[in-house]
């Protein structure tokens, strides 16, 4: 009898405690102290009063970021120049890969970038047609990396079958050929991972007769999958989301602008470059890529300058890493075919 009364009492106490503490959930606002709110106006014209922090990458001033898209866009690496005995211009470049750096890619978002020369994208390599390009590559990363240049070169300079291990070096050497805008990137498997972490850059081959003078910008269209779910969390021209929206690129009326645009987006099949208020002249540059829709047809003619094993595949790495990858084995042949595709017309 005594026990049951005791336990009943305990039960009522329990119920009382639960009912009183539930008040906290009913009226939490009473318990939280009020501060003076300030107004936060978004770019869409909506505003709210808040006492908290504003998290707004769109209106961000970009001061503290580790990467400067303005600087990158106008920076061309012409290499260390030496003129060889036969008059050929030799350009030497030094590129180091790393995969341990943490970079603030968007305000407050810190992402492990894999870098060429501590930067995403890597430096823009620039040479003139016929120059001898020599790249001293060092891999300081913890994983194997490589440099795969688009353009015409020997098979062993393709950076596909020769992975450079941790601490390893490799010297890539080729003639700047053909004229146009190319790109380079790491081609170590899984390529999607190596590219999406940031191992890429632009490679420009100028014609011997210089182009018309113009203000030149490089735009590498890229994305960042910061949570590794196979979908980009951020998109940008030159890495930093929304950057040029709040740092307008300043140009003048009637000034000629030349944009070197490279799309190195992973995970998504298509990207766009859309210009407001004017139209552009368009020079497809570097005819080693063809984007096709279902049912499209194209006739391609080409030949190889050097023997060796060369890949051809979808540059959409998902497709290539799921099977759309192939090779040509170009053999040193007895009878010289003596044919050459003219690249002059296709810059």
């Amino acid at each position, binding site marked *: 009898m005594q*026990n049951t009364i005791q336990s009943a009492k305990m039960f009522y106490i329990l119920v009382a405690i639960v009912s009183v503490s539930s008040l906290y959930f009913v*009226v939490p606002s009473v318990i939280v102290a009020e501060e003076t709110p300030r107004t936060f106006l978004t*770019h869409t014209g909506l505003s709210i009063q*808040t006492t908290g*922090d*504003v998290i707004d990458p769109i209106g961000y001033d970009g001061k503290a970021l580790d990467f400067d898209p303005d600087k990158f866009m106008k920076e061309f690496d012409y290499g260390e120049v030496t003129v060889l005995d036969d008059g050929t211009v030799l350009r030497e470049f030094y590129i180091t890969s790393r995969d341990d750096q943490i970079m603030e890619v968007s305000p*407050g978002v810190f992402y492990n970038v894999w870098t060429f020369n501590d930067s995403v994208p890597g430096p823009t390599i620039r040479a003139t047609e016929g120059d001898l390009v020599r790249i001293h590559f060092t891999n300081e990363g913890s994983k194997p990396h490589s440099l795969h240049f688009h353009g015409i070169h020997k098979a062993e300079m393709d950076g596909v079958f020769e992975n450079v291990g941790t601490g390893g070096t490799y010297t890539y050497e080729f003639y700047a050929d053909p004229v146009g805008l190319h790109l380079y990137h790491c081609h170590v498997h899984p390529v999607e991972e190596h590219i999406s972490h940031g191992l890429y850059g632009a490679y420009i081959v100028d014609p011997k007769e210089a182009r018309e003078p113009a203000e030149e910008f490089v735009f590498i269209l890229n994305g960042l999958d910061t949570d590794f779910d196979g979908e980009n969390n951020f998109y940008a021209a030159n890495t930093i989301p929304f950057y040029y929206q709040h740092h307008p690129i300043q140009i003048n009326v009637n000034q000629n602008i030349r944009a070197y645009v490279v799309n190195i987006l992973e995970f998504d099949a298509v990207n766009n470059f859309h210009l407001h208020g004017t139209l552009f002249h368009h020079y497809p540059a570097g005819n080693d890529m063809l984007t096709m829709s279902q049912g499209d047809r194209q006739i391609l003619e080409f030949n190889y300058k050097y023997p060796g094993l060369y890949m051809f595949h979808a540059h959409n790495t998902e497709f290539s890493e799921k099977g759309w990858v192939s090779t040509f084995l170009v053999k040193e042949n007895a009878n010289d075919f003596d044919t050459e595709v003219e690249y002059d017309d296709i810059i």
Partner: protein
Amino acid sequence: MTSSKPVLAISAIAPIVLLVIMVAFLLGPASSFLQFGVVLPEVSIEKIEFIENEIRATVRNTGPVDVNVVLADVNDRIQPAAIEPDTSLERFETALVRIPFDWNEGQPYEIGVTIDDGTRFAKGIDAAFPAIEPDIDLFVFLGMIGFLIGVVPIMIGLLWYPFIKKLGKNSFNFFLAFTMGLLIFLGIDAVIEAAEISENHLSSIFNGELLIATVIILSFLALYGVGKKLIQKAEFSKLSKGLAISLMIAIGIGFHNLGEGLAVGAAIALGEVALSTFLIIGFATHNTTEGLAIAAPLTSTKAKIAKMVGLGLIAGIPAIFGTWIGGFSFSPFFTLIFLAIGAGAIFQVVLSIFQYMKEKSNLLPNTSLFSGLSVGLLVMYLTSIII
């Protein structure tokens, strides 16, 4: 047994002191030694509200490390936002993310936040619904809903009393077993509902499933004590045993209805349920059987109408409080607690009825027990389909 009080105190405290020392050692000198594996941050979005030109998400750091919430998005599109009190979230801390956004009613949305390491956490809402203003209209509306799903159907169910009373002893046993069937079903229903709330609304740090089990057992034990006391009291007073059983059933169902009311109120407030007349009809039909459950044990005694109404109110009125609390301030934690208390109480009541039947007739197990149980379960299942 002759040991002095200080010795007794030391023997009680010593293990606790040693445990504290061990924890201090593990957190201090040994902490680096114990660091292994990858620590993954986790943020849960607990609540999403739509107000004029703004979406509000309550986020909680449910991971093992402190995080900063640095980005907000709507449908995976980055949006400027404010976060109160600030971007840094310690373990278990909550913050309110306020996104100025011109949303459309009835449209599905996914709200996401990104933390400093770039990980995104998101939660979807089936249909945006303006958050209800807590005013007197809502108070009346929620009260009405609670009354309609809780009190009215139970009162209707109690009206079966004269009918059951006229039946013979076998029929009486049948209806007691029938009640057990109803209650077992209600108990299982409450456990499932609590588990659903745990999965959809409660952060994993609360260990929802274990909490449900713990509360069910505690509630069972507590009601066991109360029930025993009631029945013992019945022996010494004019309070009949049947009435004691009915009272316990009413209390058990009352807890259950409180939990159910919380869930319904929350569903209304969060706009998760298109609350149709049909849904109310479903709940009402289902809950009518609860009235029958209360009435059945009373048939062996003379019951006054006032007492029966009182029992009905004990069982039904908690639904009104449930819809109020759930509607004005939804707490998945407390909804789960009350559903679990209800389940434990109901299972205890089932046991009491069984013991009561065993005392009354030594023919157990008999056909009326099994047929009653089966029919009770089936009736509940069929009425549950309507909801």
